[in-house]
């Protein structure tokens, strides 16, 4: 890792603050807000640096946005920066969601609330289906490789295989197929 902007490198406190802002801004997806803050507002990363960091965070396991916070924090302030960005991203939304959870437990049994939540749950499910379909349409899902998408759907949704077992077989097979196709 090279410290690319020593003069303008944000402090740990600043990382915490800005990632707090990012964390509470986004509904159902925070990454666009992270991009806006990092590239457009603060200019801590160039467009290209952001895309590179993003693809790294997507290849690594774990929540992408959390990886992004750790990655950016590390880049500017090492372990301290990583912890500051991580804590900033998660602390406030964590408190908010638990407060909502508590309210929901208290009042969720009320007929009006549970009726509203039947509707909200149905729409929330639709958001996930749509996200999957969008990815399937846009992400270079060339026909032979689509077999692995089908296998994942059948194995996990229909056969209900444990994810670990499935991935131990499917992930190496799918990567091997990508290597073979790339030759």
């Amino acid at each position: 890792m090279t410290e690319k902007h020593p003069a303008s490198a944000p402090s740990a406190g600043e990382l915490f603050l800005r990632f707090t802002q990012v964390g509470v801004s986004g509904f159902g997806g925070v990454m666009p807000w992270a991009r806006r803050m990092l590239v457009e507002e603060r200019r801590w990363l160039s467009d290209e640096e952001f895309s590179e960091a993003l693809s790294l965070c997507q290849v690594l396991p774990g929540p992408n946005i959390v990886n992004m916070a750790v990655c950016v924090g590390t880049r500017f302030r090492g372990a301290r920066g990583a912890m500051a960005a991580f804590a900033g991203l998660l602390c406030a939304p964590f408190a908010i969601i638990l407060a909502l959870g508590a309210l929901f437990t208290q009042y969720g049994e009320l007929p009006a609330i549970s009726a509203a939540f039947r509707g909200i749950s149905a729409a929330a499910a639709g958001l996930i289906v749509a996200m999957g379909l969008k990815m399937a349409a846009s992400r270079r899902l060339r026909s032979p490789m689509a077999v692995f998408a089908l296998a994942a759907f059948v194995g996990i949704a229909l056969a209900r295989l444990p994810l670990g077992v499935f991935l131990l077989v499917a992930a190496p097979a799918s990567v091997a197929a990508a290597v073979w196709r790339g030759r």
Partner: protein
Amino acid sequence: MSEALTQLAIDFSLLSLFAFGGVITVLPEMHRNVVEVHGWMSGAEFAQLFALAQASPGPNILIVSLIGWKVAGLAGAVVATGAVCAPSSLLTYAVSRVWQRFRGARWRKVVEDGLVPVTVGLMLAGGYLITLAADHSVAGFAITAATVAVVLTTRIHPLWLLAAAGLLGLAGWV
């Protein structure tokens, strides 16, 4: 640590390392663990917590906090959230320290090409399972289908769709 806390820590730290392409891809596994294996809640409750997480600001990984909280209170929320973030974050930290060396590395693109189809399949599996868990009426399935159609054809903010569906529910249509 109580038995439930230990179980949360084990389950979610494993999920952390399996979550390629983000948390939604491990939704089916979470559902399997939480509803089917441990019986901590019903499928409908799982779908409600998921809806709550979608309607709340912040990273959608926080569905995990709600699950932990439901299972073992505040300690459960902290343990589950920490467990799902820690292993992957440590890995990201380690890789970030040397990542310049891998700039534009070919293996990175090949690994991504290989994992994308699996990720897409897992995401669709998650959508399928959460739909079955959430919808118990024709109107429910209709709202799910309408949401999919609107998201695919317009750029409207998802929060409006959640709000509209909430109003339909409130009006007693679901």
